[in-house]
């Protein structure tokens, strides 16, 4: 605790020394790409801005650490850039502070001139079909958190030993990530920063066959070419795609000409379907199943574990088939069904943001209603009222789509809105007394007896993970429980 106060005092003095009375205090909630890009752009745009980034986890970087697949280390390099931001003089990181439980939105807004919410999407869409709660059915998010060593999923322990078949519902990049992790030789995964418990479990995995099931066709696949090329090129992996599924309608063909990504994805799938293969023994299989939607999950003999997915064939109609933005309106059941027997199901049908108290939320879209990042309190057309000083960025603002770099432009837009509002003088406190900013946050945390993890605490975790990783020939060995993370951060 003494350490905390000491650190707090240091942070405070830093805040007071560097900035005069023009100081603008900003609190960013969520330290993933959206949060850090917002911080970076705020710091660049305003010399008198002081940015505090809070996160419910003891560790920064959000999906860079817990979303990006362990076999994609290049994608994680961006953490270097974010670290430079966190260590810049006018920026501070406060880990282990959960908005909504230890601190409320109104408390933050009372203390900061500007609050930017970029806490992402930590829940899942559900299918809402019978059997969805059977054992052996997980969201892809949980599975990803598990293999990436997220402290909320370290004990998920999916059973990979009682079946040879897994079904993945969805065909976005997350679906391809989880398929790749299930199918990749463990010797290759062992060299990544995959969590220790996941590696051990995959070592004993009996899964040899993975089905990727998509409601629409190969011309509407939501994945990107990079991820698809990677999995199609995996060694000793037999790719199966039904030739009939690759027949596309003239309207699809027209549409593909305009859509660069979809066109290249379709070409990769076509090429994979037609390339000759002679499967050697013991090889693994990846099946692409198009035009099927899950109708229900069927239990196995024991009655409580999933045994099969009951699928209904779908067709796309007319112009609607190209509407990647309206996936729910374009698939029709044909009344023809088939089952895929399996013992593991991963639902990769989309993440979902969670609302918090005092925050306007569009439950239908799963986002915060906003105008270029400005949070709207009422959002009927023509009657838009802005919540002063409250902004959103990232998935909470635009829904759970896009790549790391999408947040760059997303943050740019939000910061442009903030800058406009600052120039108009909309963010000065009505009472005339400046908001306390960091000083207020530290006071609040002290009153509530909350221990936060500063960036230097994360650096201790980081150093420990790298040290243990080095001994095991991995880039890092992630610390995977709350207790150990807090211990390693030396709070």
């Amino acid at each position, binding site marked *: 605790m003494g350490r905390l106060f000491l650190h707090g005092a240091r942070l405070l003095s830093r805040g007071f020394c560097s900035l005069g009375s023009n100081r603008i205090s900003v609190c960013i909630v969520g330290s993933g790409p959206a949060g850090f890009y917002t911080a970076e752009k705020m710091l660049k745009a305003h010399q008198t801005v002081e940015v505090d980034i809070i996160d419910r986890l003891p560790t920064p970087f959000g999906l860079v650490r817990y979303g990006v697949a362990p076999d994609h280390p*290049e*994608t994680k390099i961006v953490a270097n*850039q974010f670290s430079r931001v966190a260590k810049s003089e006018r920026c501070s990181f406060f880990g282990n502070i959960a908005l909504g439980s230890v601190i409320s939105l109104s408390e933050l807004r009372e203390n900061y001139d500007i609050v930017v919410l970029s806490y992402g999407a930590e829940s899942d869409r559900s299918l809402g079909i019978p059997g969805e709660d059977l054992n052996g059915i997980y969201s892809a998010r949980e599975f990803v958190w598990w293999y990436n060593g997220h402290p909320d999923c370290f004990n998920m322990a999916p059973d990979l030993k009682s079946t040879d078949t897994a079904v993945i519902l969805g065909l976005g990049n997350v679906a391809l990530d989880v398929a790749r992790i299930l199918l990749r030789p463990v010797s290759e995964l062992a060299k990544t920063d995959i969590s220790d418990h996941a590696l051990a479990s995959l070592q004993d995995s009996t899964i040899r066959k993975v089905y990727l099931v998509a409601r629409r066709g190969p011309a509407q696949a939501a994945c*990107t*070419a*990079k991820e698809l090329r990677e999995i199609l090129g995996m060694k000793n992996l037999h790719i199966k795609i039904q030739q009939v599924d690759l027949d596309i309608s003239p309207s699809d063909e027209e549409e593909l000409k305009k859509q660069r*990504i979809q066109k290249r994805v379709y070409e990769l799938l076509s090429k994979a379907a037609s390339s000759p293969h002679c499967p050697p023994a013991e090889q693994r299989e990846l099946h692409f199943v198009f035009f099927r939607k899950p109708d229900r999950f069927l239990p196995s003999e024991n009655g409580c574990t999933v045994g099969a997915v009951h699928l209904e064939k779908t067709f796309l109609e007319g112009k609607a088939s190209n509407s990647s933005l309206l996936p729910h309106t374009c698939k029709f059941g044909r009344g023809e069904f088939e089952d895929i027997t399996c013992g593991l199901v991963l639902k990769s049908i989309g993440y979902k943001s969670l609302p918090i108290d005092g925050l306007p939320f569009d439950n239908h879209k799963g986002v915060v209603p906003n105008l270029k990042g400005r949070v709207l309190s009422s959002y009927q057309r023509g009657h838009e009222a802005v919540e002063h000083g409250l902004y959103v960025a990232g998935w909470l603002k635009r829904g759970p789509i896009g790549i790391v*770099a999408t947040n760059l432009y997303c943050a740019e837009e939000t910061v442009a809105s903030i800058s406009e509002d600052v120039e108009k003088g909309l963010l000065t406190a009505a009472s005339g007394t400046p908001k306390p900013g960091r000083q207020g946050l530290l006071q609040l945390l002290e009153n509530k007896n909350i221990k936060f993890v500063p960036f230097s605490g994360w650096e201790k975790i980081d150093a420990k993970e790298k040290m243990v990783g080095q001994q095991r020939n991995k880039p890092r060995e992630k610390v995977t429980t709350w207790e150990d993370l807090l211990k390693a951060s030396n709070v």
Partner: protein
Amino acid sequence: MFLHRLSRVGFRIARTSMPVSRSSTSTSYFGAIFNRFMHQMTNHHFSTTAINEACEGLENKEKISVTFVNKDGEEKTISVPLGMSMLEAAHENDIELEGACEGSLACSTCHVIVMDVNYYNKLEDPTDEENDMLDLAFGLTETSRLGCQVIAKPELDGIRLALPFATHNFAVDGYVPKPH
């Protein structure tokens, strides 16, 4: 610095010597130039001594002039040593070109737009991997490239590169790069 340069030349040789699988979307429009370049690379830079000599040469003098046009249309002209990527050159000269993956071909943030098709045509075709990333680039044009993959060579002297947001101005001016 020197080692870094050396490793890049090695990398370039490895890359250009390998059989290149072209994506069906890219054309072999300037295949001839590409092949000649490849030929040169494999022949002249075959031994490590040759690489050393080449690198010393690069290090000492030869530079080309590159102009970056930023989001507000402001121009900055810099000298870039042969062999250096536009991403590195931008960063060494405080030009605000993003580089999330630090040139490892895993993101699209160093997207630049070659403002003159003639210069674009002097570049090697993008690899499948670069095209995969360009798929995701914001404001993609027919002459878009990743800054980390555009390496300074003599023919590129005078090249002008726009950062993506500047493209809005092109659109207004009616500038449409020709597809090829």
